[in-house]
């Protein structure tokens, strides 16, 4: 259940009924008082995805003694989490693997709570945007080399981005290689059809 009507003799009671009914903590729900009077309070309550994530992140950062804070924005059909603070370099180190990991976890945490999937994007400044741009340039450079020399080039990881970057380049074609954790992309001259 992600929403419902709950009642109690007082607002506190109605809210604690809402919390147990929605399997949530008070900071994770959004509520409106529906009716009040004659010794009864009825609230309309629902799980609030932004609040769930905000609480998850602040408790995770505090537990890990990480000097980070998060700001959440709703962007159409997605939630955008902006992380700030002195420890953001820990997230962007090693190609941003911890930033990607945190984004993955945020998505799983919400999926476990909400009925419908709401994609979560986690960003530090414009790190991911810059990273995508660098990758795009690398893919183009590889395509140029392939077109010039006629010899295939192999690029590590980030396969989806490379396939997308070169999808419209009619000089080359791309193919994934490898299974499991180690995956690569081969860029080779496009075969004549």
């Amino acid at each position, binding site marked *: 259940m992600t929403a419902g009507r709950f009642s109690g003799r007082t607002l506190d009671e109605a809210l604690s009924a809402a919390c147990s009914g929605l399997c949530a903590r008070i900071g994770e729900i959004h509520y409106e008082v529906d009716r009040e009077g004659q010794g009864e309070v009825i609230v309309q309550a629902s799980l609030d995805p932004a609040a769930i994530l905000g609480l998850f992140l602040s408790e995770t950062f505090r*537990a*890990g*003694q990480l000097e980070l804070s998060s700001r959440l924005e709703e962007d159409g059909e997605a939630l955008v989490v902006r992380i700030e603070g002195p*420890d953001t370099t*820990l997230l962007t*180190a*090693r190609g941003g693997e*911890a930033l990607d990991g945190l984004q993955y976890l945020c998505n799983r945490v919400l999926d476990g709570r909400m009925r419908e999937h709401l994609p979560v994007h986690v960003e530090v400044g414009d790190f991911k945007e810059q990273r995508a741009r660098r990758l795009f340039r690398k893919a183009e450079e590889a395509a140029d080399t392939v077109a010039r020399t006629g010899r295939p080039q192999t690029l590590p990881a980030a396969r989806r981005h490379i396939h997308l970057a070169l999808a419209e380049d009619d000089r080359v074609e791309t193919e994934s290689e490898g299974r499991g954790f180690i995956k690569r992309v081969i860029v080779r001259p496009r075969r004549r059809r």
Partner: protein
Amino acid sequence: MSAMKDLLEEIARALVDNPEDVQVTEVEGEQTTVLELRVRNEDLGKVIGRQGRTARAIRTLLAAAGMKVHKRFVLEILE
């Protein structure tokens, strides 16, 4: 009390259906600390994920937080 243990507990609790059964034991070595995570059997999939992706994501965060204290942390998920 260790920040790493707390961090892992917090993440695991947010992922599983039975947060009260999340347990983390810290086995400290000289250079590497092993964090043993125990969850209820039916929650194992929640902390491991498809093709181990959730466990991998948790490991990247432990590595990041470990950089701050200059220590390596290894996650072990126990059945």
